[in-house]
């Protein structure tokens, strides 16, 4: 005797969090049943495998029906077919849009195109995230990207409004969108040590300070693209390293201030010009799209790796960067103080966040 049809429909749609997780993780019904059996649920509840199978099927069917609503979360709130308490709706959405750290690191900064989607097989094998789950996460990125790409207003705010995500998750998505739009390279071996958190942190700062939205909140694409004018202006900073007097003055100011405070003072003194040249050159090159994409590679190559090879403690890096950016204000011949600050405040925080093993 086989069950041809087996359904359970509640007036309030039942959501089993564990099964939802299994479904999101892309397990098939039989795999999910196997995992649930292993979780010891049969012993806890005294149910049989058949019951578990039927229950899992039911939940999967429900989730499948909910999925198209989850693509546009406001629809989930306004639909009438499934009566779901608001807290559960929030949970459904939040979990559906949650992503795996391993997966996002692979995709971050890549173009969210069909080409990338084809590579999901490889990503799946590499990260251990099931292909189904990879597809969902990728589609989520793409969907969010498409919706907020050309929208006015704050990026995270837009995402939150259109996808009803939590504050935290909306900001993560903002970072994903920002990275995808600017195509920052994050996949290089050198950058592997950076977590999504590090990059999202950087993205958030850049969105805050380096986009057109930072100066004018009424522009299109205000948070998605970098501020072209700003990047153009950054060329002016070149004088800091091109003018030898200015560079020497800058160095002496920093060294005077930090003498005795750094454990790596000699190394700092020896490397100052290199480091400064690195940071300023990064700024002046940002007009080229190629160099924008390589921003994180350059930061690691030009600043983090030299410091790390000299074993700078994080605190010394912090002291150095603070002094380095502050001293510029005392350079009389330098006229772009505001520009310097807009650049350096963000960069300093990014570097500090990125400075770890």
């Amino acid at each position, binding site marked *: 005797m086989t069950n041809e049809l087996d359904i359970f429909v509640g007036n309030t749609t039942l959501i089993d969090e564990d099964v939802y997780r299994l479904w999101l993780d892309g397990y098939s019904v039989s795999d999910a049943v196997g995992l649930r059996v292993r979780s010891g649920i049969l012993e806890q509840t005294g149910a049989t495998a058949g*019951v578990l199978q039927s229950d899992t099927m*039911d939940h999967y069917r429900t989730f499948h029906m909910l999925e198209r609503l989850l693509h546009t979360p406001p629809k989930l709130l306004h639909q009438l077919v499934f009566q779901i308490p608001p807290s559960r709706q929030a949970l459904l959405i939040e979990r559906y849009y949650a992503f795996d750290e391993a997966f996002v690191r692979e995709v971050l900064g890549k173009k969210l195109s069909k080409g990338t989607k084809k590579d999901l097989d490889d990503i799946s094998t590499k990260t251990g995230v099931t292909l189904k789950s990879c597809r969902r996460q990728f589609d989520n990125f793409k969907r969010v990207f498409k919706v907020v790409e050309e929208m006015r207003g704050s990026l995270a705010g837009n995402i939150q409004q259109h996808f009803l995500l939590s504050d935290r998750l909306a900001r993560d998505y903002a970072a994903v969108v920002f990275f995808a739009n600017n195509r920052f390279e994050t996949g290089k071996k050198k950058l592997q040590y950076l977590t999504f958190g590090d990059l999202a942190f950087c993205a958030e700062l850049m969105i805050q300070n380096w986009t057109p939205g930072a100066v004018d909140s009424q522009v299109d694409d205000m948070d998605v693209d970098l501020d072209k004018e700003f990047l153009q202006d950054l060329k002016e900073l070149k004088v800091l390293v091109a003018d030898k007097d200015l560079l020497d003055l800058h160095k002496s100011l920093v060294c005077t201030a930090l003498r005795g405070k750094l454990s790596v003072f000699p190394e700092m003194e020896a490397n100052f010009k290199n480091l400064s040249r690195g940071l300023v050159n990064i700024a002046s090159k940002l007009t080229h799209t190629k160099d924008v994409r390589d921003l994180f590679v350059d930061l690691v190559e030009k600043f983090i790796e030299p410091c790390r090879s000299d074993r700078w403690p994080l605190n010394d890096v912090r002291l150095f960067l603070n002094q380095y950016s502050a001293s510029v204000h005392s350079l009389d011949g330098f006229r772009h103080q505001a520009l310097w600050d807009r650049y350096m405040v963000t960069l300093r925080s990014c570097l500090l966040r990125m400075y770890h093993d």
Partner: protein
Amino acid sequence: MPLDSQQPNSHCYWLTTYSELLCVCSHSHLHWIPFNEDPNPNTHSSGPSTPLKNQTYSFSPSKSYSRQSSSSDTDLSLTPKTGMGSGSAGKEGGPFKALLRQQTQSALEQRGGSPHRFCRNREFPFFTLTAFPPGFLVHVGGVVSARSVKLLDRIHNPAFVGIMGNTRSYKLLDWNSFNSDEPETRDAWWAEIRQEIKSHAKALGCHAVVGYSESTSICEEVCILSASGTAAVLNPRFLQDGTVEGCLEQRLSWQPGFFSIGSEKGEVDFFPQSQDSSSLLGQEENLPAGCGFCHIPYDELNMPFPAHLTYCYSCRKQKVPDVLFTTIDLPTDATVIGKGCLIQARLCRLKKKAQAEANATAISNLLPFMEYEVHTQLMNKLKLKGMNALFGLRIQITVGENMLMGLASATGVYLTALPTPGGIQIAGKTPNDGSYEQHISHMQKKINDTIAKNKELYEINPPEIPEEIIGSPIPEPRQRSRLLRSQSESSDEVIELDLSHGKKDAFVLEIDDTDAMEDVHSLLTDVPPPSGFYSCNTEIMPGINNWTSEIQMFTSVRVSRLSNINLTNQTLNKNFNDLCENLLKSLYFKLRSMIPCCLCHVNFTVSLPEDELIQVTVTAVAITFDKHQAVQTTKTHVEKSLQRASTDNEELLQFPLELCTDSLGPHPFSPAKEHLESASSNSGIPAAQRATSIDYSSFADRCNSWIELIKLKAQTIRRGSIKTTVSVEKASPLTEGHFRQRSAPACANSTVGVVKMTPLSFIPGAKITKYLGIINMFFIRETTSLREEGGVSGFLHAFIAEVFAMVRAHVAALGGNAVVSYIMKQCVFMENPNKNQAQCLINVSGDAVIFVRESELEIMSTQQPIASCQPACGGGEIAT
């Protein structure tokens, strides 16, 4: 409470029949008022104080009319053409019988042969309701049921008619023929079945049938018509004044004077025991609550079937049976020990495929055995649970091409008033075989263990009562012999009667064949629900009173294909049993997050859409309850349940007037009674005149009595109309204001308002403030892309989800926030996977209501403390 009178063929006129029924049957004591003759108010102005009222209380119907075992036979043989009662005229003695006969005959004269008229003149009220106000049910006799097998394509020709009842006596009727056209023939079929139900009820000494329902099962041209209900003796006080139609009138015009008009006819009374009833009530109210309905209504010396009687374990004055089966909900005033549980009997019988009459004959031949086995299973499972009564019994027989399915669901409880059930004893047929003996004793041990376990699980621990007090439950040898009827009219001298064989413990299961062996096994395979779960098919679980507000209504559908080609009854039974058990297990598993909770109103429907397909549809509601408050003494149980009853009544009332009764406490009936009497003594004065000379001191009380009446009648005809409440609302603007206040936050909550759905008539922790009307919706859906929609499961899942959504949307559009008494009446599913097609028809119905959380209500009432007197004033304004 679900009114299941919507079966395809069962459109009947009984809502309209009550009125005349009351008139027709309104013989008063010793003189008979003919049909249509105006009862003279003066004759009755003295109220119920007729000479008979003062006689000492001894309730026994046999004193006034001797119950005759032949009554059911004679009635059965009647076709609608001959009419009831006439066949047996004059055969039996007793003035009351004569009166009844006179009444029916005069009624028959009036009816002039029309079947419609005939139906209007019934003497037995049929109530499809399953819950009643406290005190309404005087006695409950037991389940009465009738089935009939009909051929649908033979309507114009003589058809095979097999009628049988399961009041433990089976009868087959002769061939009957009808020459009328189709609808009338079907009416006649139902009339016949109702007739039989009536006669069964009569055989149980009852004059009414409550919890009545009718159903059909059709396969090809064969149709099984089934009806069942609970024979009962009703409290005449609830029915005596006014009529249902009159009540409708009064709701339309809202004339308080009407009630007095109603009570002018206060003495009308159609009960055979009417001279007892008024005094009886006086007595009954002094008795310990909640055992009266258990007392046997039939003559204990001439019982319609062998039963084991003992003195009531509560009052020790009246006789009670050893078990009680009913189709109604547990009366609110009944006292139970422990919790109840869902008990199901499941049965399949193969039959040969056949055509037309041969098929009908085959089915008719199988039916009595199925009923018997279902009954035996129920009895065994009841004993196994250590319980002694079944409520909400619903036996469903489904006919398929090559099999018959029987599924009986009921809620078992331990009634305090009934004796402790004996155990189950297994007896082998070949006692000489040693290993067999061992096996038997092993089984016996298992059964005993199960009983003990169940008693613990359901908290059944009745107090030990010394046997001397209650009388010996073990009959002495002389009592075993069946008493002759001549003795029955003897006297009050009570002779202990026991018609069962042996002592009561000896409920012997004889294992004489594999079938019986299997039965015992199946008894033991029923797994109790996991801890924290209870289930019942009645409105609420007996023994649980502290419901919290979380409810989850659901529908689950399973279709199973029988894979075996060589099916036997045993494998079929096992398959069906597994299907149901697994379904229940699935439900328990799915709803585990709600523990502690109870599945209420579990409603199984079985259909056989194809040769090898069994479809089981379950609709129920899971309600959580507070575990800590669950442990209560029996006394508070009773109080609680009484309170629940009164709040229930208020909830059911369509009028906002119910605020008035809040101040009058949970026992509104005692004042109501007095004032009914006083009202009837006033009855000589015209209504309007009296209204002006109202004694305001007693006004609230009078209001109260009116309200009780409205309540009762509103419950009866609740589905009738909605518009009638308008005038009342205007009368008390405050209530309307109230309502606006309450409903506002509910709507403002979220984008989509939550609409609760429940098959119950109430919502725990909430008060229904307004009934918005009946929802009755039919849906048909077809798909030609079955695979793409996720197969049959995907298709039906989405469809049912959308049906729920449409019902909710409909209710929300009416301004409501809940559906009560929700029922899925039909769920017909057909598929053709080869064509990638499927069709489904669903019919659902329920009542749209507005409810308010009790917590919100409390806040409201503290804000407006004068609310309680308002309706009374409002009523006064209208009256003058």
